[in-house]
């Protein structure tokens, strides 16, 4: 039974989407629990990719391909997981700040968060502070996560933090920031709870914040 989990994990790392789908189906038929398939098969594989990405051993294209394979597997599992009432790790509102259209980094963050079992509400790019707040309220979010690639737009993160504060959400919602020009010092200056230099670390820290 463990062999098939390992197989799913390895196929996912290689980005073999159709085979991942097939093996997940087969595992279900063999009587494996959907939760085990998710955690020991799919998420375990994504963890390996995340670790390799952080060490520069794999790059953006491999992460995207592996994530596509993961989503294929999750699609098969979803009805079963829902039936069993498997809880998500938490809800994250994610977006690139207003004035900024860069989305590759943000998409990687989304994939890594999903790889840790988070429910991610992706607001896309050019997202205003109000939109972040509205989504956080609507989805009863645990974390709001902002990305920016330009030094001229990253200052917008301060507005998002302020808007969360004004809406009375700051006690409840953790605020995370990231993107190429963002540094720890900048994150401190906008009152963020957490800054991480890469997508894989972001997902780990998000998990830590939600369990704290």
């Amino acid at each position: 039974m463990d062999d098939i989990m390992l197989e799913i994990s390895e196929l996912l790392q290689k980005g073999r989407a159709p085979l991942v789908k097939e093996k997940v189906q087969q595992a279900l038929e063999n009587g494996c629990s959907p939760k085990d398939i998710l955690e020991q098969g799919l998420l375990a594989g994504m963890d390996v990719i995340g670790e390799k990405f952080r060490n520069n051993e794999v790059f953006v294209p491999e992460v995207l391909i592996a994530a596509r394979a993961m989503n294929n597997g999750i699609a098969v599992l979803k009805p079963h997981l829902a039936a069993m009432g498997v809880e998500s790790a938490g809800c994250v509102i994610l977006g690139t700040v207003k004035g900024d259209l860069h989305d590759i980094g943000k998409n990687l963050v989304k994939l890594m968060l999903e790889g840790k079992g988070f429910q991610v509400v992706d607001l896309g790019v050019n997202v205003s502070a109000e939109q972040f707040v509205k989504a956080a309220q609507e989805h009863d979010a645990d974390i709001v996560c902002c990305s920016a690639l330009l030094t001229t737009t990253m200052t917008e993160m301060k507005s998002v933090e302020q808007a969360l504060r004004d809406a009375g959400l700051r006690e409840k919602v953790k605020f995370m920031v990231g993107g190429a020009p963002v540094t720890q010092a900048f994150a401190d200056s906008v009152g963020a709870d957490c800054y991480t230099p890469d997508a894989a670390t972001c997902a780990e820290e998000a998990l830590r914040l939600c369990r704290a």
Partner: protein
Amino acid sequence: MKIDCRNGDTVADALKGQNILLTPCGGRGSCGKCRIQTLAGEWLPPTGDERRLLSSEELAQGIRLACQARGTGLCEVKVLFQTDEMHIQSAHGQLTGPLRKLRRDMDGKYGFTADLGTTTVVAQVWRGDGSLLGERAMPNPQGAFGADVISRIESALEGRGQELQDLAAGCLDELIKEACRQAGISPGSLEEGVIVGNTAMLTLLAGEDPQGLAVFPFEPGDYFGGWYGAQDLGLGAAGARIHLPRCIAGYVGADAVAAALAADLDRPGPVRLLGDIGTNGEMFLSLNGKLLCCSTAAGPAFEGGGISCGMPGIGGAISKVFLQEGQLKWETLGGTPRGVCGSGLLDAAAAFQALRLLDESGLLVKDGEPQPSMEIGDSKIALTQRDIRNLQLAKSAIRAGMETLLSRAGVLPEQVETLYLAGGFGSCLNPKSAGAIGLIPPRLAPRAEGLGNAALLGAAAILLREEGRRRALAISKEAVHLELSQDPDFMERYVEHMMF
């Protein structure tokens, strides 16, 4: 070097205005390049960023980052990183083509042209008969505010626009004066001038608000295209009338328009592609004289930024890497190797690839094992895995831009007759290596042609040629600009071409 830190200044602040390009990332403590060594004085302890970017041995030797290290009195430092000895490429020798049909009204008169580049500023003095009389170049002193246009725009928005304007004007003034001295004429006898530059550089020179360039949709407040008095631009030395050619978009400026003019892309003819490749890549596709253009942000990797051993094309830079009987060979621009410049970086990656030391995904491997870094032959200079990742991002941005242009026009790469490569890096690179690593479509490598500083060449055409100014204006108004940042087709290609 003695500096005054009595106000608690950082070393970078204390050195500002001395024309030493110290802070590639604009002093945010993110690039780790602006290394100095503290020799004397009292210093505040290293910041978190310094501890992250410097090793404990380096910190023990007093090596610090200029943008982070704060002194508390009169101090003494040694600058370990500087780029003020820039290798400047001249546009000589290519002037015959575009200078046919000279303006009659410039006969016997003098004028100047200048390319106000983000990295390098060049000025030339001309006689109306098309003779180049003098040329001078220096690094853009605005570099103290950061190597890229975005950090300069940010500084201007923080209220330092006047300083940036003064630096640009002062630098142009000095270059024009020196070029005049070389030409043996007085700056007062210059009647006309043409200054090209990207939209942000012209905006800062004219002292206008760059807010529109800072955020989406990146629309400039002013597209330029008009005449200015030398005094309006703070140019005491220059001639009476100065023309700033019209820009196409926030990130396709007058320099790109001038380059397209220099390559005669607006003339009917075969399918041609032009790439001005640097930190920002501007690309034009000419379909029988009709123009389609776009820009992509390649980042500073081709100019040495974000590359651990990256440096500009000056002495000590490995500029060529090649294979000889299966052995990896290298050449520097003089002296023992100190780092690698853009063309050397491309060559090294292509050579690693040929030796199967770099796999398709961009992983450095040897005997099947991933390697953290790889030495370039016996040069003692190595590229790290992270350097390769930064190269992948940069080359992919350029390639995806070119292919998106071609695909929008329904043109296949093999239908392009000539690929013109312009800019300092663009015209120095080896097209074969560029094709091998996929910076340009591999099929176009044999059809690539270096143009040198095409923007400056185009500026001369605008100053001197009968129809130069009119044609530049027409290019700026008629070229169709593709905004790639929201184009899903571009994003897909961008990810695809990160692979080797």
